[in-house]
Protein backbone atom coordinates (compact mmCIF):
# COMPACT_ATOMS: atom_id res chain seq x y z
CA UNK A 1 0.00 0.00 0.00
CA UNK A 2 1.26 3.45 -0.92
CA UNK A 3 0.62 6.77 0.79
CA UNK A 4 -1.24 9.36 -1.27
CA UNK A 5 -1.52 13.05 -0.43
CA UNK A 6 -5.03 14.38 -0.92
CA UNK A 7 -5.63 17.85 -2.34
CA UNK A 8 -8.77 19.92 -2.56
CA UNK A 9 -10.14 23.21 -3.82
CA UNK A 10 -12.64 25.17 -1.74
CA UNK A 11 -13.63 27.21 -4.80
CA UNK A 12 -12.92 26.70 -8.46
CA UNK A 13 -10.45 29.62 -8.46
CA UNK A 14 -8.36 28.24 -5.59
CA UNK A 15 -5.04 26.50 -6.00
CA UNK A 16 -4.77 22.89 -4.91
CA UNK A 17 -4.38 22.73 -1.12
CA UNK A 18 -3.11 19.74 0.84
CA UNK A 19 -5.99 18.46 2.99
CA UNK A 20 -4.64 15.12 4.19
CA UNK A 21 -3.48 11.72 3.14
CA UNK A 22 -4.69 8.16 2.71
CA UNK A 23 -3.23 4.76 1.99
CA UNK A 24 -4.29 2.93 -1.16
CA UNK A 25 -2.74 0.47 -3.60
CA UNK A 26 -2.94 2.77 -6.63
CA UNK A 27 -4.26 6.17 -7.81
CA UNK A 28 -7.63 4.82 -8.98
CA UNK A 29 -8.48 3.34 -5.59
CA UNK A 30 -7.05 6.42 -3.86
CA UNK A 31 -9.49 8.61 -5.80
CA UNK A 32 -12.44 6.36 -4.97
CA UNK A 33 -11.63 6.44 -1.27
CA UNK A 34 -10.54 10.09 -0.97
CA UNK A 35 -13.90 11.29 -2.27
CA UNK A 36 -15.58 9.99 0.88
CA UNK A 37 -12.74 10.29 3.41
CA UNK A 38 -12.12 13.97 2.73
CA UNK A 39 -15.08 15.47 0.83
CA UNK A 40 -18.21 13.78 2.14
CA UNK A 41 -19.15 16.95 4.02
CA UNK A 42 -18.95 19.13 0.91
CA UNK A 43 -15.48 20.39 1.83
CA UNK A 44 -14.62 21.38 -1.72
CA UNK A 45 -15.48 21.66 -5.39
CA UNK A 46 -12.64 19.51 -6.75
CA UNK A 47 -10.14 17.01 -5.45
CA UNK A 48 -7.03 15.15 -6.46
CA UNK A 49 -4.47 12.69 -5.14
CA UNK A 50 -0.71 12.38 -5.62
CA UNK A 51 1.44 9.45 -4.63
CA UNK A 52 3.82 10.76 -2.00
CA UNK A 53 7.20 11.50 -3.53
CA UNK A 54 5.90 11.67 -7.10
CA UNK A 55 4.91 14.62 -9.29
CA UNK A 56 1.84 13.36 -11.16
CA UNK A 57 -1.47 14.71 -9.86
CA UNK A 58 -4.55 12.55 -10.42
CA UNK A 59 -7.72 14.67 -10.46
CA UNK A 60 -11.00 13.14 -9.23
CA UNK A 61 -13.80 12.71 -11.76
CA UNK A 62 -16.57 14.14 -9.55
CA UNK A 63 -17.50 17.81 -9.66
CA UNK A 64 -18.86 20.21 -7.06
CA UNK A 65 -22.44 19.19 -7.75
CA UNK A 66 -21.79 15.64 -6.64
CA UNK A 67 -19.08 15.90 -3.98
CA UNK A 68 -20.70 15.38 -0.59
CA UNK A 69 -23.81 13.90 -2.18
CA UNK A 70 -26.97 15.29 -3.74
CA UNK A 71 -29.56 13.75 -1.41
CA UNK A 72 -30.24 14.82 2.17
CA UNK A 73 -27.12 14.12 4.20
CA UNK A 74 -27.60 17.02 6.60
CA UNK A 75 -27.08 14.66 9.55
CA UNK A 76 -23.42 14.53 8.60
CA UNK A 77 -22.97 18.21 9.39
CA UNK A 78 -22.61 19.87 12.77
CA UNK A 79 -25.66 22.10 12.40
CA UNK A 80 -27.85 19.00 12.32
CA UNK A 81 -27.04 18.53 16.01
CA UNK A 82 -28.09 22.02 17.05
CA UNK A 83 -30.38 21.78 20.06
CA UNK A 84 -29.62 18.14 20.81
CA UNK A 85 -28.10 18.99 24.22
CA UNK A 86 -31.06 21.15 25.23
CA UNK A 87 -33.50 18.49 24.08
CA UNK A 88 -31.69 15.86 26.11
CA UNK A 89 -31.85 18.02 29.26
CA UNK A 90 -35.56 18.69 28.68
CA UNK A 91 -36.31 14.98 28.30
CA UNK A 92 -34.19 14.19 31.37
CA UNK A 93 -36.20 16.70 33.41
CA UNK A 94 -39.47 15.17 32.18
CA UNK A 95 -38.23 11.74 33.16
CA UNK A 96 -37.36 12.97 36.66
CA UNK A 97 -40.76 14.66 37.01
CA UNK A 98 -42.41 11.34 36.30
CA UNK A 99 -40.35 9.71 39.02
CA UNK A 100 -38.31 7.69 36.56
CA UNK A 101 -34.55 7.35 36.61
CA UNK A 102 -32.12 6.21 33.98
CA UNK A 103 -29.45 4.55 36.05
CA UNK A 104 -27.00 3.43 33.41
CA UNK A 105 -23.52 4.09 34.86
CA UNK A 106 -21.71 7.07 33.45
CA UNK A 107 -18.09 6.85 32.25
CA UNK A 108 -15.46 7.28 34.99
CA UNK A 109 -14.82 10.92 35.85
CA UNK A 110 -18.04 12.16 34.27
CA UNK A 111 -20.22 14.19 36.67
CA UNK A 112 -23.33 12.44 37.83
CA UNK A 113 -26.73 13.74 36.81
CA UNK A 114 -27.35 14.91 40.40
CA UNK A 115 -24.37 17.30 40.32
CA UNK A 116 -24.86 18.48 36.74
CA UNK A 117 -25.70 22.21 36.56
CA UNK A 118 -29.21 22.85 35.35
CA UNK A 119 -29.85 24.62 32.06
Amino acid sequence: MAVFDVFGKRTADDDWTLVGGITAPDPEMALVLAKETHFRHKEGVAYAVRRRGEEELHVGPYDAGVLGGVTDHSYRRQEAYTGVGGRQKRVSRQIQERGLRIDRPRPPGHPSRDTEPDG
Partner: protein
Amino acid sequence: MNGDPRLALVLSVADDELVIGHRHSEWTGWAPHIEEDLAFSSIAQDEMAHARLLYGLARAAGLTDRDEDALALGREPAEYHNAVLCERPNGDWGYSVARQYLYDTADSVRLEALASSSWRELADVVNVMRLEETYHVDHARTWFSRLAGGPVTGRQRLADGLSKAIGEAVAVFEPLPDESKLISDGVLPRSSEDLLNEWLGAVGKELEAASLDFVLERHGSVGEMVPTGSGEVRGEEVFSPPGVNRRDGVWIHEGGFAGAGGRRGRHSDDFVPMWEEMTMLYRTHPGARW
Protein backbone atom coordinates in the same frame (compact mmCIF):
# COMPACT_ATOMS: atom_id res chain seq x y z
CA MET B 1 -51.79 -3.16 -1.25
CA ASN B 2 -52.93 -0.38 -3.53
CA GLY B 3 -54.05 -1.76 -6.92
CA ASP B 4 -51.93 0.73 -8.84
CA PRO B 5 -48.93 -1.25 -10.17
CA ARG B 6 -46.76 1.85 -9.77
CA LEU B 7 -46.69 1.19 -6.03
CA ALA B 8 -45.10 -2.24 -6.50
CA LEU B 9 -42.57 -0.70 -8.87
CA VAL B 10 -41.60 2.08 -6.48
CA LEU B 11 -41.46 -0.23 -3.48
CA SER B 12 -39.33 -2.75 -5.38
CA VAL B 13 -36.66 -0.17 -6.09
CA ALA B 14 -37.00 1.57 -2.71
CA ASP B 15 -36.92 -1.63 -0.68
CA ASP B 16 -33.85 -2.84 -2.59
CA GLU B 17 -32.11 0.39 -1.66
CA LEU B 18 -33.25 0.34 1.96
CA VAL B 19 -32.37 -3.27 2.62
CA ILE B 20 -29.00 -3.32 0.88
CA GLY B 21 -28.24 0.01 2.55
CA HIS B 22 -28.98 -1.60 5.90
CA ARG B 23 -26.70 -4.53 5.09
CA HIS B 24 -23.93 -2.17 3.92
CA SER B 25 -24.27 -0.20 7.16
CA GLU B 26 -23.46 -3.36 9.10
CA TRP B 27 -19.89 -2.97 7.81
CA THR B 28 -19.52 0.36 9.60
CA GLY B 29 -16.64 -0.07 12.01
CA TRP B 30 -15.72 -3.45 10.53
CA ALA B 31 -14.66 -2.73 6.94
CA PRO B 32 -11.13 -3.84 5.93
CA HIS B 33 -9.60 -0.40 6.62
CA ILE B 34 -10.77 2.98 7.81
CA GLU B 35 -10.85 4.64 4.40
CA GLU B 36 -13.10 1.89 3.09
CA ASP B 37 -15.17 2.06 6.25
CA LEU B 38 -16.06 5.66 5.41
CA ALA B 39 -16.64 4.95 1.73
CA PHE B 40 -18.93 1.98 2.31
CA SER B 41 -20.80 3.78 5.09
CA SER B 42 -21.40 6.69 2.72
CA ILE B 43 -22.78 4.33 0.11
CA ALA B 44 -25.09 2.84 2.74
CA GLN B 45 -26.35 6.33 3.59
CA ASP B 46 -26.87 7.10 -0.09
CA GLU B 47 -28.95 3.97 -0.58
CA MET B 48 -31.16 4.78 2.39
CA ALA B 49 -31.59 8.35 1.15
CA HIS B 50 -32.71 6.97 -2.21
CA ALA B 51 -35.24 4.75 -0.50
CA ARG B 52 -36.52 7.77 1.40
CA LEU B 53 -36.97 9.76 -1.83
CA LEU B 54 -38.95 6.93 -3.38
CA TYR B 55 -41.15 6.37 -0.32
CA GLY B 56 -41.90 10.08 -0.33
CA LEU B 57 -42.81 9.86 -4.00
CA ALA B 58 -45.21 6.98 -3.35
CA ARG B 59 -47.08 9.03 -0.79
CA ALA B 60 -47.01 12.26 -2.80
CA ALA B 61 -48.50 10.39 -5.77
CA GLY B 62 -51.35 9.11 -3.59
CA LEU B 63 -50.29 5.48 -3.90
CA THR B 64 -50.23 5.07 -0.12
CA ASP B 65 -51.15 7.08 2.95
CA ARG B 66 -48.08 5.86 4.85
CA ASP B 67 -45.23 8.31 5.42
CA GLU B 68 -41.56 7.57 4.81
CA ASP B 69 -40.92 6.10 8.27
CA ALA B 70 -44.01 3.93 8.14
CA LEU B 71 -43.04 2.58 4.73
CA ALA B 72 -39.43 1.96 5.68
CA LEU B 73 -40.01 0.54 9.14
CA GLY B 74 -43.70 -0.04 9.72
CA ARG B 75 -44.55 -2.85 7.35
CA GLU B 76 -44.75 -6.57 7.91
CA PRO B 77 -42.03 -8.73 6.27
CA ALA B 78 -44.31 -9.97 3.49
CA GLU B 79 -45.01 -6.35 2.49
CA TYR B 80 -41.39 -5.70 1.49
CA HIS B 81 -40.65 -6.04 -2.22
CA ASN B 82 -36.85 -6.15 -2.17
CA ALA B 83 -34.91 -8.75 -4.12
CA VAL B 84 -33.62 -11.64 -1.99
CA LEU B 85 -30.05 -10.70 -2.99
CA CYS B 86 -30.26 -7.50 -0.95
CA GLU B 87 -31.30 -9.19 2.30
CA ARG B 88 -28.54 -11.80 2.47
CA PRO B 89 -26.06 -11.41 5.34
CA ASN B 90 -22.80 -9.71 4.45
CA GLY B 91 -20.59 -12.76 4.81
CA ASP B 92 -16.97 -11.91 4.15
CA TRP B 93 -15.68 -8.88 2.27
CA GLY B 94 -15.41 -10.94 -0.92
CA TYR B 95 -19.14 -11.65 -0.91
CA SER B 96 -20.00 -8.06 -0.01
CA VAL B 97 -17.91 -6.70 -2.89
CA ALA B 98 -19.35 -9.28 -5.27
CA ARG B 99 -22.89 -8.42 -4.24
CA GLN B 100 -22.30 -4.68 -4.44
CA TYR B 101 -20.79 -5.08 -7.92
CA LEU B 102 -23.69 -7.22 -9.15
CA TYR B 103 -26.39 -5.15 -7.47
CA ASP B 104 -25.14 -1.71 -8.43
CA THR B 105 -24.44 -2.65 -12.05
CA ALA B 106 -27.98 -4.09 -12.20
CA ASP B 107 -29.39 -1.03 -10.47
CA SER B 108 -27.60 1.19 -12.98
CA VAL B 109 -29.34 -0.55 -15.91
CA ARG B 110 -32.71 -0.31 -14.16
CA LEU B 111 -32.33 3.36 -13.28
CA GLU B 112 -31.19 4.29 -16.76
CA ALA B 113 -34.45 2.84 -18.09
CA LEU B 114 -36.59 4.51 -15.43
CA ALA B 115 -34.99 7.88 -16.20
CA SER B 116 -37.12 7.93 -19.34
CA SER B 117 -40.32 6.85 -17.59
CA SER B 118 -43.57 8.52 -18.64
CA TRP B 119 -44.12 9.15 -14.91
CA ARG B 120 -42.17 12.40 -14.79
CA GLU B 121 -41.92 12.60 -11.00
CA LEU B 122 -40.35 9.15 -10.91
CA ALA B 123 -37.92 10.07 -13.67
CA ASP B 124 -36.93 13.20 -11.73
CA VAL B 125 -36.22 11.22 -8.56
CA VAL B 126 -34.29 8.60 -10.52
CA ASN B 127 -32.11 11.25 -12.11
CA VAL B 128 -31.15 12.51 -8.66
CA MET B 129 -30.35 8.98 -7.56
CA ARG B 130 -28.19 8.36 -10.61
CA LEU B 131 -25.86 11.20 -9.65
CA GLU B 132 -24.87 9.24 -6.54
CA GLU B 133 -25.19 5.78 -8.04
CA THR B 134 -22.42 6.59 -10.50
CA TYR B 135 -20.01 6.57 -7.57
CA HIS B 136 -21.42 3.28 -6.28
CA VAL B 137 -20.63 1.57 -9.58
CA ASP B 138 -17.22 3.23 -9.66
CA HIS B 139 -16.51 1.92 -6.16
CA ALA B 140 -17.75 -1.56 -6.99
CA ARG B 141 -15.77 -1.86 -10.23
CA THR B 142 -12.60 -0.57 -8.58
CA TRP B 143 -12.84 -3.18 -5.85
CA PHE B 144 -13.88 -5.88 -8.34
CA SER B 145 -10.80 -5.34 -10.48
CA ARG B 146 -8.44 -5.18 -7.48
CA LEU B 147 -9.71 -8.45 -6.01
CA ALA B 148 -9.95 -10.15 -9.41
CA GLY B 149 -6.31 -9.25 -10.02
CA GLY B 150 -5.16 -11.18 -6.99
CA PRO B 151 -3.46 -12.25 -4.84
CA VAL B 152 -4.99 -15.70 -4.97
CA THR B 153 -6.84 -15.53 -1.65
CA GLY B 154 -8.62 -12.29 -2.53
CA ARG B 155 -9.49 -13.51 -6.01
CA GLN B 156 -10.83 -16.79 -4.62
CA ARG B 157 -13.01 -14.97 -2.10
CA LEU B 158 -14.38 -12.72 -4.83
CA ALA B 159 -15.09 -15.74 -7.03
CA ASP B 160 -16.83 -17.50 -4.16
CA GLY B 161 -18.89 -14.38 -3.52
CA LEU B 162 -19.83 -14.06 -7.17
CA SER B 163 -20.81 -17.72 -7.35
CA LYS B 164 -23.01 -17.32 -4.30
CA ALA B 165 -24.64 -14.07 -5.44
CA ILE B 166 -25.00 -14.39 -9.21
CA GLY B 167 -28.25 -16.36 -9.27
CA GLU B 168 -30.01 -14.02 -6.88
CA ALA B 169 -28.58 -11.02 -8.75
CA VAL B 170 -30.37 -12.27 -11.86
CA ALA B 171 -33.57 -12.20 -9.80
CA VAL B 172 -33.20 -8.45 -9.26
CA PHE B 173 -34.94 -8.44 -12.65
CA GLU B 174 -37.72 -10.78 -11.64
CA PRO B 175 -40.83 -9.44 -13.42
CA LEU B 176 -42.96 -7.07 -11.38
CA PRO B 177 -46.61 -7.65 -10.54
CA ASP B 178 -48.78 -6.32 -13.39
CA GLU B 179 -45.67 -5.44 -15.35
CA SER B 180 -47.49 -5.44 -18.68
CA LYS B 181 -49.62 -2.49 -17.50
CA LEU B 182 -46.52 -0.58 -16.39
CA ILE B 183 -44.95 -1.14 -19.80
CA SER B 184 -48.05 -0.21 -21.81
CA ASP B 185 -48.35 3.02 -19.81
CA GLY B 186 -44.69 3.83 -20.39
CA VAL B 187 -44.04 3.94 -16.64
CA LEU B 188 -41.58 1.08 -17.10
CA PRO B 189 -40.03 1.83 -20.50
CA ARG B 190 -38.58 -1.65 -21.00
CA SER B 191 -39.48 -5.07 -19.65
CA SER B 192 -37.54 -6.60 -16.77
CA GLU B 193 -36.45 -9.43 -19.07
CA ASP B 194 -35.08 -6.91 -21.57
CA LEU B 195 -33.20 -5.07 -18.82
CA LEU B 196 -31.91 -8.36 -17.44
CA ASN B 197 -30.40 -9.37 -20.75
CA GLU B 198 -28.74 -5.97 -21.18
CA TRP B 199 -27.19 -6.29 -17.70
CA LEU B 200 -26.28 -9.94 -18.13
CA GLY B 201 -24.57 -9.29 -21.46
CA ALA B 202 -22.44 -6.50 -19.95
CA VAL B 203 -21.60 -8.34 -16.75
CA GLY B 204 -20.81 -11.47 -18.76
CA LYS B 205 -18.21 -9.54 -20.75
CA GLU B 206 -16.64 -8.12 -17.60
CA LEU B 207 -16.51 -11.54 -15.97
CA GLU B 208 -14.96 -13.01 -19.11
CA ALA B 209 -12.34 -10.24 -19.19
CA ALA B 210 -11.41 -11.19 -15.62
CA SER B 211 -11.58 -14.94 -16.42
CA LEU B 212 -14.36 -15.26 -13.85
CA ASP B 213 -17.16 -16.22 -16.24
CA PHE B 214 -17.09 -19.73 -14.81
CA VAL B 215 -19.45 -18.43 -12.12
CA LEU B 216 -22.06 -17.95 -14.85
CA GLU B 217 -21.44 -21.41 -16.28
CA ARG B 218 -21.94 -22.95 -12.85
CA HIS B 219 -25.13 -21.01 -12.29
CA GLY B 220 -26.42 -22.07 -15.69
CA SER B 221 -25.97 -25.72 -14.90
CA VAL B 222 -26.62 -25.90 -11.15
CA GLY B 223 -29.31 -23.31 -10.56
CA GLU B 224 -31.40 -23.86 -7.45
CA MET B 225 -34.62 -22.55 -6.02
CA VAL B 226 -34.20 -20.68 -2.77
CA PRO B 227 -36.58 -21.58 0.04
CA THR B 228 -38.61 -18.58 1.06
CA GLY B 229 -39.94 -17.83 4.50
CA SER B 230 -42.86 -15.48 3.93
CA GLY B 231 -45.54 -14.57 1.43
CA GLU B 232 -48.01 -16.69 -0.46
CA VAL B 233 -47.48 -18.44 -3.78
CA ARG B 234 -50.25 -17.58 -6.21
CA GLY B 235 -51.64 -20.43 -8.22
CA GLU B 236 -51.07 -18.85 -11.60
CA GLU B 237 -47.34 -18.38 -11.03
CA VAL B 238 -45.18 -20.77 -13.00
CA PHE B 239 -41.76 -21.81 -11.78
CA SER B 240 -39.08 -23.07 -14.10
CA PRO B 241 -35.44 -23.92 -13.43
CA PRO B 242 -33.27 -20.82 -13.23
CA GLY B 243 -30.42 -20.41 -15.63
CA VAL B 244 -28.22 -18.38 -17.90
CA ASN B 245 -26.55 -19.42 -21.12
CA ARG B 246 -24.04 -18.11 -23.62
CA ARG B 247 -25.35 -17.82 -27.16
CA ASP B 248 -23.56 -16.14 -30.06
CA GLY B 249 -20.96 -14.80 -27.66
CA VAL B 250 -23.47 -13.14 -25.32
CA TRP B 251 -24.75 -14.27 -21.93
CA ILE B 252 -28.54 -14.40 -21.81
CA HIS B 253 -31.20 -15.43 -19.32
CA GLU B 254 -33.07 -18.69 -19.76
CA GLY B 255 -35.78 -20.17 -17.56
CA GLY B 256 -36.76 -18.88 -14.15
CA PHE B 257 -34.97 -17.23 -11.29
CA ALA B 258 -33.00 -18.42 -8.28
CA GLY B 259 -34.25 -16.63 -5.21
CA ALA B 260 -37.41 -15.49 -6.97
CA GLY B 261 -40.28 -14.13 -4.96
CA GLY B 262 -38.88 -10.96 -3.46
CA ARG B 263 -40.98 -8.78 -5.72
CA ARG B 264 -44.07 -10.50 -4.33
CA GLY B 265 -43.05 -10.36 -0.69
CA ARG B 266 -41.53 -13.82 -0.43
CA HIS B 267 -38.18 -13.69 1.28
CA SER B 268 -35.43 -15.96 2.49
CA ASP B 269 -35.04 -17.03 6.09
CA ASP B 270 -32.38 -14.31 6.40
CA PHE B 271 -34.94 -11.54 6.04
CA VAL B 272 -36.92 -11.65 9.26
CA PRO B 273 -33.92 -11.45 11.66
CA MET B 274 -32.65 -8.44 9.69
CA TRP B 275 -36.15 -6.89 9.63
CA GLU B 276 -36.52 -7.38 13.39
CA GLU B 277 -33.31 -5.48 14.05
CA MET B 278 -33.96 -2.80 11.43
CA THR B 279 -37.47 -2.04 12.67
CA MET B 280 -37.02 -2.71 16.38
CA LEU B 281 -36.98 0.90 17.52
CA TYR B 282 -39.92 1.88 15.31
CA ARG B 283 -41.99 -1.07 16.49
CA THR B 284 -41.12 -0.37 20.13
CA HIS B 285 -42.11 3.30 19.88
CA PRO B 286 -44.56 3.61 16.96
CA GLY B 287 -44.96 7.17 15.79
CA ALA B 288 -41.96 8.48 17.75
CA ARG B 289 -40.11 11.41 16.16
CA TRP B 290 -36.42 12.11 16.48
